[in-house]
């Protein structure tokens, strides 16, 4: 009779472990390794090439005394907050409208989704043009007779980040809308019926009943939006190049500029490290709660 204990644990699920090698490698070598490397070199005075000349926190001191960085962070915060709120809001409202058993749903959905197929370069270019005060919307409205009409978000440092937001939302809300639509379709019909019998108005049903039921969708949507926000770069470069002045700088661009324009890798790495730190502080506890602990099925 065989012993009660089984064969060594490691070889159970062996295929799964082998199949997961690319993932494990990516996670460990690229993400963890790359991050560690970045953090390490953020303490050096590397210029064009990485060099192990350690300078302590000098790069960080410089980083935090740079007005460009401070503006970048402020912009990211504004852009991030508005982008998150409006993407979810607009995406949800559009999805709710499309979910009303309307005709031409496919057409509307396609129209709202197509910008997602276009790159940020394209998006930025198109909007840069439409928002150009000399021949875009401002000029068109002026030509219609409102001589004093002024709408030049990309050329006004105070509101330039909102100009970028317009294009960002245009590009990204379609996907969020699809997510939300999928979520709405997953809601039990009977919930709607119950609410109707309770006499709950439509908007209240959405806010108090349906939205809380769509937690999963909102999480996926937030991951998508938030990861996009942190990475926002192309859109800014294509629309304003960070301008006017440094009014629309963002952290990803700061990193890029520091590494490749200033040829100050150390500085770029220090900025990267700050970004990573923020991400880790926010995302890791959440991701662990969300995907880690519990077991399914």
């Amino acid at each position: 009779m065989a012993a009660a204990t089984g064969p060594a644990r490691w070889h159970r699920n062996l295929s799964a472990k082998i199949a997961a090698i690319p993932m494990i490698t990516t996670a460990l070598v690229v993400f963890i390794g790359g991050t560690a490397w970045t953090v390490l070199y953020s303490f050096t005075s590397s210029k064009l090439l990485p060099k192990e000349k350690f300078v302590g926190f000098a790069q960080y001191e410089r980083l935090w005394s740079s007005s460009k960085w401070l503006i970048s962070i402020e912009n990211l915060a504004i852009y991030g907050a508005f982008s998150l709120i409006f993407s979810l809001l607009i995406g949800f409202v559009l999805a709710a409208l499309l979910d009303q058993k309307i005709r031409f749903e496919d057409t509307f959905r396609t129209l709202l989704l197509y910008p997602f197929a276009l790159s940020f370069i394209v998006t930025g270019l198109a909007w840069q043009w439409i928002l150009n005060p000399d021949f875009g919307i401002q000029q068109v409205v002026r030509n219609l007779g409102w001589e004093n009409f002024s709408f030049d978000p990309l050329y006004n440092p105070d509101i330039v980040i909102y100009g970028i937001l317009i294009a960002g939302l245009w590009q990204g809300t379609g996907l969020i809308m699809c997510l939300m639509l999928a979520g709405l379709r997953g809601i039990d019909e009977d919930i709607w019926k119950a609410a109707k019998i309770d006499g709950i108005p439509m908007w209240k049903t959405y806010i108090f009943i349906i939205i809380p039921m769509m937690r999963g969708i909102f999480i996926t949507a937030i991951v998508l939006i938030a990861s996009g926000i942190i990475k926002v770069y192309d859109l800014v470069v294509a629309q304003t190049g960070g301008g006017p002045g440094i009014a629309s700088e963002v952290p990803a661009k700061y990193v890029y500029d520091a590494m490749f324009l200033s040829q100050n890798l150390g500085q770029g790495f220090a900025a990267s490290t700050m970004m990573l730190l923020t991400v880790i502080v926010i995302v890791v506890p959440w991701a662990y709660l969300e995907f880690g602990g519990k077991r399914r099925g």
Partner: protein
Amino acid sequence: MGNVTRASADVQVSPVPQEMTGPRGPKPRTVLSRRNIMIYGTLIMVSLYYMLPLYVMIVTSLKGMPEIRLGNIFSPPVEITFQPWVKAWAEACTGLNCDGLSRGFFNSVRILIPSVLLSIAIASVNGYALANWRFKGSETFFTILIVGAFIPYQVMIYPIVIMLREVGLYGSLTGLVIVHTIFGMPILTLLFRNYFASVPQELFKAARVDGAGFWGIYFRIMVPMSLPIFVVAMILQVTGIWNDFLFGVIYTKPDLYPMTVQLNNIVNSTQGVKEYNVNMAATILTGLVPLTIYFISGKLFVRGIAAGAVKG
């Protein structure tokens, strides 16, 4: 219970005429009800807003330069010309090469196909392993991947240059394909994992009893029933990879530069005056591949998203 009417088995009570008063039949609804006006009104307005840039791009791309200089970007072309399209596709210059986007098109295709295939293959296997074959630490790796989704690409350029150099893949198509696979992995893995987790466990158990192993179940059971999520993954990846500029240009060399490099060159370099019509034509041409895929597979996209994203 005393007052219950004990009707006979014959229930066809003939209606008394006076009862026919009052509402009868469907609730009257006009096509222009306030509700419809609100819904369709909003949708049409929003759609117009979403269409605006595309409209401007198309209209502009069909105008000649003199007409563009006149100003109004919203006015339809007076004289339609396809010259800008021809120029964008075949004549626009980048430095010395004056063959427009056509030069990069096949490179883009060459990059796109293996990148999409490999990234989807790997991410789907990851998602499958995470959903059905958990092992110790698998969730930790997944958490790292998700965090990785938030790392800006720019941060990783350098480390990856070094890694690719060390494994000798720098500058090759393989290297680029790997880079796309790596950066597509987090979100795709998330989607696949959620999708496979929503596939009934019993199906998986049945297949194990039937003697199918890790790969048998993956190829014979999971893949064939997961078309929607593969479509979603394909759309996301096609869009991302086709539109990529940074990786394409950093991790390859000129004979492999994707179309977006030409696009960037056409858009960012001006020969005297900016040829907006050519720029717009080039822009649309570049977006054509992902757009086509969208229009073809829009329905599946929503279905796939529904399956892949609902479970959080």
